[in-house]
């Protein structure tokens, strides 16, 4: 009896205020889409930083016979030069920064090179002597790469020092800024959504004044009187959350997986449709919780039991 009655009330309520309900759904959907976008961008940033930690973040390439840098004027790096880099890496000056490092001889470099370009005709033209010796360093703190880079940059026998973080930095920066922007818009839209829910509830209460008066009179409990209104708002918000998830799916499927990942590389772009498995429930739950909160506040104002 109760469940059927409450369900019936929710549907009549939604139907009577259909225009308001549609606007609640749209506003909630748009705001939750922004929230979802922000979440996914943050997830992308976290994934990227994790990759950086896993991989060596700073790489020192010593001179090969083909190097053109000023510090490589003497040709390929000598054993003494290689040794001095090794000693510097083990030394006390750099130990606060370096977690571990890994030396790659020219033979190993050739093997990797041959694997990477297997099948290409020019691979057989190179021998181990053409390949540089390199050191792959994992830092204790990925943000403090500058000290290490500066230490080795321009040393005799050092061709190039690359810092993965500084290569990723602009990208992470863009993502961080976009997250801020998306969350800012989301907050604005969520405020609009909350106010709309409050107004809708108020209209719903006004529409059903007579029923409410009689329910109070015959002694229906407060919760029983309020439940249809609470659930009405929640249903609208949940529909909004589902639509938001749909929009995110489209964005992830067509924009991220269809264009961004092939353009920037699958290793870099880690977010995808699979992330909706956790993002969609979060969005739908957030929508429901916010709308119920807003309903409770407006019911306390407009429905004195």
């Amino acid at each position, binding site marked *: *009896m109760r469940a059927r*009655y409450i369900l019936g009330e929710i549907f009549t309520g939604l139907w009577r205020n259909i225009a308001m309900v549609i606007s609640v759904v749209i506003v909630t959907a748009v705001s939750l889409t922004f929230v979802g976008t922000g979440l996914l961008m943050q997830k992308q940033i976290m994934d990227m930083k994790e990759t950086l930690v896993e991989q060596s973040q700073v790489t020192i390439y010593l001179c090969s016979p083909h190097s053109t840098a000023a510090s490589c004027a003497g040709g390929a790096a000598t054993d003494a030069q290689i040794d001095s880099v090794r000693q510097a890496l083990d030394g006390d000056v750099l130990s606060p920064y370096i977690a571990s490092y890994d030396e790659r001889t020219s033979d190993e470099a050739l093997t990797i090179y041959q694997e990477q370009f297997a099948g290409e005709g020019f691979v057989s033209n190179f021998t181990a002597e053409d390949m540089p010796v390199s050191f792959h360093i994992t830092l204790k703190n990925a943000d403090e790469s500058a000290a290490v880079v500066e230490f080795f940059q321009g040393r005799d026998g050092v061709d190039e020092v690359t810092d993965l973080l500084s290569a990723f930095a602009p990208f992470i920066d863009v993502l961080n800024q976009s997250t801020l922007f998306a969350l800012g818009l989301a907050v604005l839209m969520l405020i609009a959504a909350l106010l709309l829910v409050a107004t809708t509830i108020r209209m719903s209460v006004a529409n059903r004044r007579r029923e409410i008066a*009689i329910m*109070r009179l015959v*002694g229906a409990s407060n919760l029983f009187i309020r439940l249809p209104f609470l659930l009405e708002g929640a249903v609208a918000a949940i529909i909004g959350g589902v639509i938001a998830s749909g929009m995110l799916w489209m964005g992830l499927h067509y924009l991220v997986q269809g264009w961004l990942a092939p353009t920037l590389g699958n290793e870099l772009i880690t977010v995808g449709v699979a992330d909706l498995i956790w993002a969609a429930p979060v969005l739908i739950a957030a929508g429901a919780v916010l709308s119920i909160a807003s309903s409770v506040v407006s019911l306390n104002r407009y429905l004195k039991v």
Partner: protein
Amino acid sequence: MIRFDNVTKTYMRGQYPAVENLDIEFSRGEFVFLVGASGSGKSTMMRMVLKETTPTRGTVYVAGRDLSRISSWRVPALRRDIGMVFQDFRLLPSKTAYQNIEFALAVIGTPRKVVRHLVPEMLEMVGLEDKGKRLPHELSGGEQQRVAIARAYVNRPSILLADEPTGNLDPSTAEGILDLLAEINERGTTVVMATHDQSAVDRMQRRVVEMVGGKVVRDEEGGLYETVASASVISGNLPDDSEHRAEHPLDDPEDQGRPEQPSEEHQDVSDVLDEELIDERDAQLDQVDDAFADDEDEEERR
């Protein structure tokens, strides 16, 4: 069953109380007529029994319980034991007679099996067993009031409050409604009926309580509508000054010299709580809403 213990209710700061120093008791199984002009405090008494409004001073007891000590979440339980009938019936226009009665049971969670048993029984009691499927606008005024009484009584309350239940009905229909209320009273329910219906009071000859300006001026067992008692206003023995009184707030200079207003009253009304002001505002809003609701009804009919 119902006891007012020195109860005063002031809706708005600076205005005369709706009821003042009310001390009266209605016992179990009694049938009481409340008579008196509009604004004499009859409806306020009923609202206080339902805990729709709280007294400014004093205590109301219903079935031995002090209403001021009942927490808000237990008010519904109190109201389940009180039936209420209005002059304007207050049926839900989109529901049939059967559904209107069913509604009162459904919203307090009565199992469907019980509902299916109780509603036809109620329809039979009020003599509408063949009209359960009619909508309120397809019923006459008297029939609508019968549905309203069935709805109020379906939970077998121990108290039935009726606020001018025959006010919108012709005399012979009113008689039928009165008989129905008498039947309910015979089944053991305390009935308190506010009325202006002289023939009803005269015919029943039950306890009559007359109110003037928020005070009880007559309490007569087996009384008639009119009386020889000197304080009775409705019998024309005393001019009615209550309407004039209500229109003027206390700080009106004209009122200062009125001999029948003791000076202590100026203090009494000043300690009205803000909550009461909100009550008053709500009451006004309700009136506005009712006006809109009437418009709505007309639109629906068209």
